[in-house]
């Protein structure tokens, strides 16, 4: 196709000096090379080294990865991250979709306001959510326990969320934070569903479930896939929320230790940037695999 009419496009291309695109690309390319590509290659060499701060290192071959496999803290972090990811996605995606469906109902009043209310927590940074929810989850004086105790008098107001159920607390805080954001994605997709198609189906006697299953769902499938992927990617990088929530620690018995938190601890508190890079590669490998899998599933369903 491209080469069928070589004369016309060529003439217009010649109208700009050849260096123009490079002029516009230079700032990006220089910074990208210096602060993304160079660290990226660095992370490869680093993952075969043990370091003592940023200046001193020694080569350990595959030692870091071998050590990872039998490092109980790494497995604890993996376990916590996986539980959080699965629980978070399983709770968040249906709830966000449900909210979007309700909000998309014709005849609803105050739609813009409700959307704003649901979305507003996702503007709050993870650190600040951590600060706020550390007090919300507080024993006795916290918002959650006081409310639960008022509604269910049998509930013990001294229940320590951040001691006995750290992962549940994390899932709850993340739900408050992100459900509105995910809802906005679904809402945007729902607005693309042709309204006359739904109307025609309901005149033909299709039930609400049938309309959802056969008209709405196929239309929002790509966005649903994207929301799931983005939720998993975000969950796998969880660090600030538990770190701040647990007062700059991994919590009692490392109950709130996540993979990125372990990366931070080994790299910047212990000073072994090599081991931290090895953890980084494990996280990357998982996420790249998931992204490729996602692409394959999405292609197949098209």
């Amino acid at each position, binding site marked *: 196709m491209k080469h069928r009419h070589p004369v016309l496009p060529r003439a217009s*291309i010649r*109208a*700009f*000096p050849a260096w*123009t*695109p*490079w*002029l516009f*690309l230079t*700032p*990006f*390319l220089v*910074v*990208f090379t*210096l*602060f*993304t590509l160079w*660290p*990226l290659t*660095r*992370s490869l060499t680093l993952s075969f080294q043990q370091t003592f701060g*940023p200046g001193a290192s020694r080569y350990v071959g595959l030692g870091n990865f071998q050590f990872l496999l039998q490092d109980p803290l790494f497995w604890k972090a993996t376990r916590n991250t996986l539980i959080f990811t699965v629980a978070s996605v399983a709770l968040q995606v249906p709830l966000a979709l449900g*909210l979007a469906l*309700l*909000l998309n109902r014709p005849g*609803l009043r105050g739609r813009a306001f*409700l959307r704003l*209310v*649901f979305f*507003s927590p996702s*503007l709050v*940074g993870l*650190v*600040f959510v951590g600060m*706020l*929810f550390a*007090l919300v989850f507080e024993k006795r004086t916290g*918002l959650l326990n006081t*409310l639960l105790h008022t509604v269910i008098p049998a509930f013990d107001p001294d229940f320590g969320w951040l001691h006995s159920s750290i992962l549940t607390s994390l899932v709850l805080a993340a739900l*408050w934070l992100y459900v509105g954001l995910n809802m*906005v994605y679904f809402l*945007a*997709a729902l607005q693309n569903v042709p309204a006359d198609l739904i109307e025609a189906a309901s005149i033909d006697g299709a039930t609400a479930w049938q309309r959802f299953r056969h008209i709405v769902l196929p239309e929002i499938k*790509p*966005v649903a896939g994207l929301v799931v992927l983005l939720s998993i990617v975000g969950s796998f990088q969880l*660090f*600030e929320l538990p770190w*701040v929530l647990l007062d700059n620690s991994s919590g009692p018995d490392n109950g709130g230790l996540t*993979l990125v938190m372990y*990366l931070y601890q080994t*790299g910047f508190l212990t000073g072994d940037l*090599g081991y*931290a*890079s090895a953890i*980084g*590669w494990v*996280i*990357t490998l998982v*996420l*790249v695999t998931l992204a490729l899998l996602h692409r394959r599933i999405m292609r197949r369903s098209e």
Partner: protein
Amino acid sequence: MKLRLHRFALIGVHVLLAGFALLMLLPFVWMLTASLKTKLDFFESLFFPGGNGLFGVAWDRLTLENYRRLGSELAVPRAMLNSVFLASVTSLGATLTAAMGGYALAKFSFPGREWLTSLVVSALIIPAPLLLAPGYQVLFQLNLLDSYAGLFLPALAPPFGVFLFRQAMLHSVPAELIEAARIDGAGEIRIFFALVLPLVRPMIGAFLLITFLGVWNNFIQPQVVLQSPERLPLSVAINSLRGIYGADYGLIMAGTLVSIAPVMCLFLLLQKEFISGLTQGAVKG
């Protein structure tokens, strides 16, 4: 019959959504009231202290003392200025480099364009934690640790931004317009600033806000790169309040509120651009 059922269902939907909205707002309200109370009142009442005033609230027991202390005793105003400075400079710089890069990839045909575009797209998948440790080492080697340049410079190459601007320019900048300007003798740089940028104004607003929010809320990067207390942004400074004033809940809630209020206001001003920018890539593909 069917219509009445429909009516009841609609009322149910309103009640359900209103209840959920209330739940979402409760933490904000709780934080606001906590920040206005003395230490003693924090423990005695959940929201407002009870009394004989209007609505059964002891309004006269509310105090701005926590905010006064944030302003006078602590380094919070300084940290706020740092955050405003860092977030503004970074978002302006990153938006400019991203728009320039996106323009080059969308509107010029040159050898290496396809290759560069796929490089940008593949860079989207690199998770930030992977670059944390090696990025720190690079900053160390470039002697940029504990400086704003160490935070600002790496943020100037956002692959996500280049990609967003490329998409926006493919859709809303007609090639004929650029060619016409060239025939009229306009320079390439003038074409970019005077003709192309105004055409992608919504994307500029969205990306400015996305970057501003990202920098304002970023914690791990400044925590790792900066050491001097006077350089710390709000995210790091507020988090360290808890170590010193652990049981001073009102003060901590005031500090948290002050940290999230500016971005909330900014969002309210720019919300249309922001949401359309966020969902554009997702829905239109």
